[in-house]
């Protein structure tokens, strides 16, 4: 315990030190990062509160207030588990592993102290959903001390589930695939399949529950099943049995996860097998293609990078297959649109969903940071900065656009949608891919993180990545909500969104190619 506390203090000292010891401009940059993240975080919570309040006004007076709390719990859980899977490192060795292992500290204490950053990340994600839904519920139903304190306790313990899943999946991915020649690719595929399976189970359970009210509790089926019923019992009645079960299902897996992870912590992955090389092979491919090729290698070799870059577009690909088996009305039902309204709202909703899936990738915001300590290579090579930056944006665009085209064409063929609608669902995500790529690289230049301990820090837990994901999560639905509020019709909404994304994409390209170039030239490594 003592070692755990010392290591935890050291973690905080490092985080605080990196802020305090920065001088002048750099400290200003760190403070501005905190401010920007804070503002975006608050804006997202405000958007969620607005949306939850709108639902609460409908459900609470009708006696279905539990629906609002249950939505908050489930969204918080799903989002936190989803993001925790995105930061599975796949056993990548952190830089100070040797130093820590050489000290008289147990592996368990090291892993436990390292898990705190994952806990804080999951805590923030859970707060994003639990806070607005609980607030919206109490704004309409009135303040309830029981709900308030129960929510506080849930806020503290639910992140344990996300951390446990992250640790256990990390352990499994290392244990199963450690000795394979394609270990990194297999780990990435394993985590992606697991994530999709979890999401699949969630949607399946959501749509296949008997919603007839339970004779004892009076709750509809989907609110009366595990884990929602247990969370509601605790929140509404401060049920001690429910609390004990919650503690058991959160704390025990955490201890198991920490134990399992401590078994693999710091173990060196086996050296890669030597491949035969042909020194005479290799052609001059130019700067952009060469940098792109190196970035592709990094992508394939890094589970965290691959999961973050690929998950959204893979979901698009699954959608491309699903449209041949599911009707427009069924998919509209998944999105919360009634069958009667499917035809009317589907264009705008699909534009938003396609755009959101493409915008899930935080890869571009890590494109510069991933250079890490090898940043000197790009700095000292005879290449125009413009070419470097274009190459850095290309990877995300190239890996997204083919999937967008497949999804749009599949939807066109399967559902027989009109050509203008097809164009809208094709163009909007392409513009989002461009906007997200150029803005991501720009944000990475504003907040570069070249001194990281593990790639996951640069990919997911960096200021640039957080700001990009929050921007995407805010901007895309905000534009949609705004256009629905001014009520211009779904097709017009879809096309105005396409125009809006095109304008933002053009702005991002201009920003990176002007101010971004100056920022790149100014970045120096000590």
């Amino acid at each position, binding site marked *: 315990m003592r070692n755990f506390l010392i290591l935890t203090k050291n973690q905080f000292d490092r985080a605080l030190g990196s802020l305090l010891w920065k001088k002048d401009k750099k400290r200003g940059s760190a403070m501005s990062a905190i401010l920007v993240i804070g503002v975006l975080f608050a804006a997202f919570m405000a958007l969620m509160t607005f949306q939850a309040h709108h639902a609460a006004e409908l459900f609470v007076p009708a006696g279905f207030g539990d629906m609002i709390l249950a939505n908050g719990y489930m969204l918080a859980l799903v989002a936190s588990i989803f993001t925790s899977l995105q930061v599975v490192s796949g056993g990548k060795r952190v830089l100070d592993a040797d130093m820590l292992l050489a000290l008289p500290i147990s592996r368990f204490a090291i892993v436990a102290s390292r898990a705190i950053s994952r806990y804080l990340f999951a805590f923030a994600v859970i707060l994003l959903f639990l806070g607005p839904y609980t607030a919206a519920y109490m704004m309409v139903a009135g303040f309830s001390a029981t709900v308030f304190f129960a929510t506080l306790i849930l806020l503290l313990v639910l992140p344990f589930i996300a951390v446990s899943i992250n640790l256990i999946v990390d352990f499994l991915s290392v244990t199963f695939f450690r000795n394979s020649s394609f270990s990194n690719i297999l780990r990435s595929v394993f985590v992606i399949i697991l994530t999709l399976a979890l999401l699949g189970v969630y949607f399946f359970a959501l749509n296949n529950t008997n919603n007839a009210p339970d004779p004892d509790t009076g709750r509809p089926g989907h609110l009366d099943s595990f884990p929602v019923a247990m969370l509601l019992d605790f929140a509404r009645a401060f049920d001690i049995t429910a609390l004990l079960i919650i503690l058991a299902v959160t704390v025990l897996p955490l201890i198991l996860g920490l134990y399992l992870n401590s078994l693999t912590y710091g173990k060196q992955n086996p050296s890669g097998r030597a491949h035969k090389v042909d*020194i005479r092979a290799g052609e001059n491919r130019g700067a952009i293609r060469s940098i792109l090729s190196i970035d592709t*290698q990094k992508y394939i070799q890094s589970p965290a990078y691959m999961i973050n870059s690929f998950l959204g577009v893979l979901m698009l690909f699954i959608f491309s297959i699903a449209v041949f088996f599911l009707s427009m009305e069924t998919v509209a039902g998944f999105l919360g649109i009634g069958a009667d309204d499917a035809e009317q709202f589907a264009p705008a909703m699909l534009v938003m969903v396609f755009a959101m899936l493409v915008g899930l990738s935080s890869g571009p915001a890590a494109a510069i940071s991933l250079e890490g*300590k090898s940043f000197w290579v790009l700095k000292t090579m005879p290449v125009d900065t413009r070419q470097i930056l274009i190459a850095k944006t290309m990877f995300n665009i190239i890996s997204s656009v083919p999937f967008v085209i497949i999804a749009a064409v599949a939807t066109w063929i399967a559902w027989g949608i009109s050509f203008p609608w097809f164009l809208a669902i094709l163009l909007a995500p392409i513009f989002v891919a461009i906007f997200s790529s150029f803005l991501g690289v720009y944000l990475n230049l504003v907040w570069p993180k070249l001194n990281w301990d593990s790639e996951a820090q640069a990919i997911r837990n960096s200021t640039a990545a957080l700001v990009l994901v929050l921007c995407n999560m805010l901007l895309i639905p905000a534009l949609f909500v705004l256009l629905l509020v001014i009520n211009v019709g779904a097709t017009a909404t879809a096309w105005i969104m396409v125009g809006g994304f095109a304008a933002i994409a053009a702005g991002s390209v201009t920003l990176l190619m002007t101010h971004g170039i100056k920022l790149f030239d100014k970045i120096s490594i000590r």
Partner: protein
Amino acid sequence: MLKVQNLTKVYSSGKRAVDDVNLTVEAGDIYAFIGPNGAGKTSTIKCIVGIHGFDSGEITIDGNSVKENSRRCKEITAFIPDNPDVYTSITGMQYLNFIASITKLNPTRKAELVEKYAKVWELDHALGMPIGSYSHGMRQKLVLISAFMREPKLLVLDEPFVGLDPKAAFTMKEVMKEFVANGGAIFYSTHVLDIAEKLCNKVAIIKGGKIIADGTMAEIAKDKSLEKVFLDLE
């Protein structure tokens, strides 16, 4: 080949890392740059190779200004850092192909030089392995091969002997001599004074960001060892 005039570099913390430094490296020179830790060696080198900007002064490489024509300067200069941090996810050969491609080397000439230097530094067997599995010394050798295969006019090296085994260090000295004999110039920082004394024809000593002594090895050392001169100046 390399001319540094009144170079001053001040960090955002206010620290004056390099203060009015003047240096001239001619073709055929092996120029040692020595000084205590934190004296400004690496900062000066990073200004020369374009990693850092600088506040005042001028750096020219083969007549080209680093500020105004940085791309041309980078085309004729190869840099080897004190820590050979390179992309760990690719193989050694992929790294060499990347550098060759980005610097537009002739593929045939590249192949000849990779073959030559990989054999010289005994890395030919490991070029197909991921760099992540290399030792520090192997990474250092890989970065050396990538620098020499470019056939630059100027080589800038920061502590190039760190991490090399005795045989590789000996080979390094021979390759450096061959490089300058063919008209190249080398500017390198080091703490290994006995090697510098035997290998270099010129030396500069930096302390607190200022050059406190510079000239030919004979002028600086006179009848004393370079180590003695260095310690006396400390």
